[in-house]
């Protein structure tokens, strides 16, 4: 019984999101079964019926879009010893704060017409704007391998290994052809690594879904984009796809 009790209790929660990050955890397949063996998963609504208020680690997916979300998030914060922001929505809001770029009344009218007031909503915020977040698993969606590394570190009581260097480092290690030479633009030079340079490795540009490195050289990056004939609007658009909340905080 005491050995049973010693297993860390882990819970998963979600707010406004596509739930794709929890899906990546299900997608771990066999590895997930090992993870399940090392802990007690006490709540994971997307995959199981049971629920509980007694947990040590809370993984929270999604962003905060209404007052009633705040109450639930604060309750989770109170119950959890460690609160982890799972994925870009929880970390930066991901694409959702694009909503904040327009007046709220207009946003409601576009989707619900004259019935907009039936629905509770306010400007989108990431978790850290409401509660203290202990650790982040970045990305849209999260990288499964990175999640397992963070998970192991948390169980061992260590600092989760999230890289401090940019995506370009991983891209170079993979010997990818730089997407700039293919005529595209890319935010790899300022974006935090850890995804294995997923998009440039598939000849797509990095759009900073993982957020920026600690001291990004933004002016240099914007100059590079301008040299590649991007207009001010285009540059803004590239920086706001996944990072509009971060940009608005400057």
């Amino acid at each position, binding site marked *: 019984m005491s050995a049973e009790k010693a297993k860390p209790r882990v819970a998963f929660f979600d707010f406004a999101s596509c739930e794709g990050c929890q899906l*990546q955890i299900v997608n771990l397949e066999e590895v997930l079964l090992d993870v399940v063996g090392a802990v007690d998963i006490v709540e994971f609504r*997307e995959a199981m019926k049971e629920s509980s208020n007694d947990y040590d680690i809370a993984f929270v997916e999604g962003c905060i879009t209404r007052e009633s979300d705040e109450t639930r998030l604060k309750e989770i914060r109170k119950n959890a010893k460690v609160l982890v922001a799972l994925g870009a929505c929880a970390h930066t809001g991901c694409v959702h704060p694009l909503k904040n770029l327009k007046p709220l009344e207009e946003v409601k009218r576009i*989707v619900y017409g004259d019935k907009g007031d039936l629905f509770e909503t306010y400007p989108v915020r990431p978790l850290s704007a409401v509660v203290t977040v202990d650790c982040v698993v970045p990305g849209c969606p999260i990288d499964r391998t990175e999640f397992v590394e963070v998970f192991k570190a948390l169980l061992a009581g260590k600092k989760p290994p999230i890289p401090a260097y940019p995506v370009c480092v991983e891209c170079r290690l993979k010997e990818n052809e730089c997407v700039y030479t293919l005529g595209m633009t890319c935010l790899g030079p300022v974006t935090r690594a850890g995804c294995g340079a997923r998009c440039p490795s598939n000849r797509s540009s990095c759009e900073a879904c993982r957020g920026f490195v600690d001291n990004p050289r933004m002016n240099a990056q914007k100059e590079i984009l301008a040299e590649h004939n991007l207009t001010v609007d285009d540059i803004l658009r590239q920086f706001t796809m996944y990072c509009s909340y971060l940009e608005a905080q400057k």
Partner: protein
Amino acid sequence: MSPATKKIELHHVTRVEGHGNIYVDIENGAVKRCQWAVVEAPRFFEAMAIGRKWDELNFLTSRICGICSIGHQLASLKATESAMAVKPSEQTVLLRKLLLLGENLQSHILHVGYLVLPDLAGVGSVIPLTKSNPAAVGVVVRLHRLANELCDIVGGRTTHPVRAVVNGFTMLPRPRELVDLRKRLEASIDDLQALVNVLKSVAGNLPAFERDTEYVALVSNSEYALYDGLVGSTDAKPVAVEDYLKVTNEYIVPQSTAKYAKYHRASYAVGALARYKLNHAKLSDPARKVASELGLTPDARSPFMNNIAQVVETVDSVVEAMNIIDLLLMGGLKEEPSALKVKAGRGVAAVEVPRGILFHDYTYDENGICVMANCIIPTNQNHANIQLDMEKLVDEIKEEPREAIELKLEMLVRSYDPCISCSTHMVKVRWL
């Protein structure tokens, strides 16, 4: 409280994607209230899309749903191509069809294996099944991984793929990857049969319930329609995709952050069962064999049979994926330019995603900036039908113990495989 009086309030129904609630109030044997309510936080994607550029919309709308991100991307790409009057190459279309089959497999196996099987086996999640029936879980895990790898190979990522772009792909799978994938698909047939056998042994636990309704799905003369077709219905002749608003007739109800839809009746159903009913004649022989093994017939009237239709489609998707790989390898994959001339215009597209027909509709200005967007998601089209099923079901089972009613209502909702965060999220039942 007398046994004839029961209040149920299930908040945040589990093992579904998104947040929904079920409210039931039975007083002295009479049903006073029965409500399916979507409480997912609305996310306003259409408003986010306005002001974004033509080559960003597939990546943006992909984020509507983690489970059907591929389907959203394909509907988005097709709508943009229609607006720009661009016709993608045959190779691009084949690769997209393969990607869509991968998503269908991925999603159906996840739903039937991880989310529905626990109900049929009488447990709360797949975790106890790893001990009580490890062989069945092994089959589900292997099939699910294979489906995910298919999507990785073609799309560059399982969820929110990165290679599919307007008028092409940024990168192609290598022929060796496709050859290997085909071998593994062929080898998965044994696993599929094992999954069918597991379901056959527990399918009797699906509640006995039927209700007449209208079914809507894409239809095509040439194939079991998923990627393209006309909008078919069990109640009427097919109509063009551009006329989708005549089909969906969305309306807003206060109990739900998701919109509802109706066509010829008070509600209609979309999804695997709708597709099967309208297109069963186009299924491959192995899929038809499985349908007859599992007792699925074109006159099925039970929403619970959607689970079985998903299994039938799983088999069909494996067969069809192998056929497409053969065509791609025969033709030889070649790099193709995807550049296009941006123009102003409106484009409407429909794709069958795992949960049913999905519509995207965009208008662009002359710079390719989106000025109008509308996305109608399958689960939204099912909400009214779920509500009406629930009313009939509750009335039929109101004498049963509370726990039995709860379980059946949850199973009903799950059988639609609702994607509530898509439709905005889903529900749960609680007894007061």
